[in-house]
């Protein structure tokens, strides 16, 4: 069996296909940026998570430090229980504040972590106690109308 030009073409084709997959993985996908680092797991309870989804980013000071892993409804407390993975490189104090925020006016929702001042750090499996729920537009409008009505009553 001899080497033929056909082998060369097939080899070039396979190499090009593999290269395309690598380009997709590293340039288009997120394999190059944030994946292989070890993470630890935290959880928090929210009154209302709004439109938060699994895989939404967890940011602190605008930097992505983790991803939401799981969202569940707790039937005991009637609150949403959100579990998220945080990169091992980043440690947060025990009194860190977790908020659900929105990027841009119509953007996706993410968890923002505001570090507190506690000397001890959060460990794997810990609960982030202090949380702030997502802003729900209907509730906001409701509050606004209510306060307007109250103002109107006061002026009488």
């Amino acid at each position: 069996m001899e080497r033929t030009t056909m082998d060369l073409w097939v080899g070039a084709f396979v190499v090009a296909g593999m290269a395309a997959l690598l380009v997709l993985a590293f340039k288009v996908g997120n394999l190059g940026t944030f994946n292989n680092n070890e993470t630890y797991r935290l959880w928090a309870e929210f009154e209302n998570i709004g439109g938060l989804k699994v895989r939404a980013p967890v940011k602190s000071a605008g930097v992505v430090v983790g991803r939401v892993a799981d969202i569940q409804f707790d039937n005991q407390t009637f609150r949403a229980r959100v579990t998220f993975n945080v990169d091992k490189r980043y440690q947060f104090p025990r009194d860190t504040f977790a908020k659900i925020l929105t990027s841009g006016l119509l953007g996706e929702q993410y968890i923002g972590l505001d570090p507190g001042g506690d000397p001890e750090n959060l460990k794997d499996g810990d609960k982030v106690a202090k949380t702030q729920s997502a802003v729900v537009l209907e509730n906001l409008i409701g509050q606004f109308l209510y306060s307007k009505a109250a103002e109107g009553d006061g002026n009488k």
Partner: protein
Amino acid sequence: MVERFLAAVRGIGHRVVDAVWRMGYAARFFVATLFHSGASFRRFHLTIKEIYFSGVLSLIIILVSGLFVGMVLGLQGYETLQKYGSESALGTLVALSLVRELGPVLAALLFASRAGSAITAEIGLMKATEQLSAMEMMAVDPIARVVAPRFWGGVISMPLLAALFSAIGVFGGYLVGVVLIGVDEGQFWSQMQAAVDFREDIVNGVIKSVVFGIAVTAIALFEGYDAPPTAEGVSHATTRTVVTSSLAVLALDFVLTAFMFRGV
């Protein structure tokens, strides 16, 4: 009157039985192909030849179509996104639609019409000119010698073609979006990388293209092998290959998408 009614019922019954029969034959043919594929890996140069015919020769059409699909996505996506002031999400739109859907599906449709029809015509003609019977006379199993290498050639080529389609499509979107229209380059790539997940999107796209490759090649091989050994029979079989495998790709795509991207 009653006679004609009965004849119609008989006709329907005949067709149903015939379709089920053909289905069973196709399943047996598919299993036999898998069973005899050992030879196509032991004598790998046979498979290499088929990768050349179905993969390398389809490259031009795949690359050109991918580039144009990506460029159209860039133009249309920009048109719509800029109405909401979010043209920076153009990279996400182009990459997600290519990697998840358009790459695997369009590459499979092109592959069906470019390589699938050629496989059917070739095997149908081999049958019509009694080359397959001649092989059997020489104690060479035509499924091991002719069918299995073509099957694996198609199954190996398909994911590579789909990946090339997606990659060149993203490049096309980049050309139109960033170079031509002037969307910010940093936002284009960073939003894309933030939204496209390796396991969720890229691996699922590759799985799709492997499934499409199996479906298209198996249908093309079976139609060729089952074609009546006449000029008309081969031409009908070639048409049926393109129609059936295109429909199969679209139907399978729906089923796979329903399983893969369920409300994440």
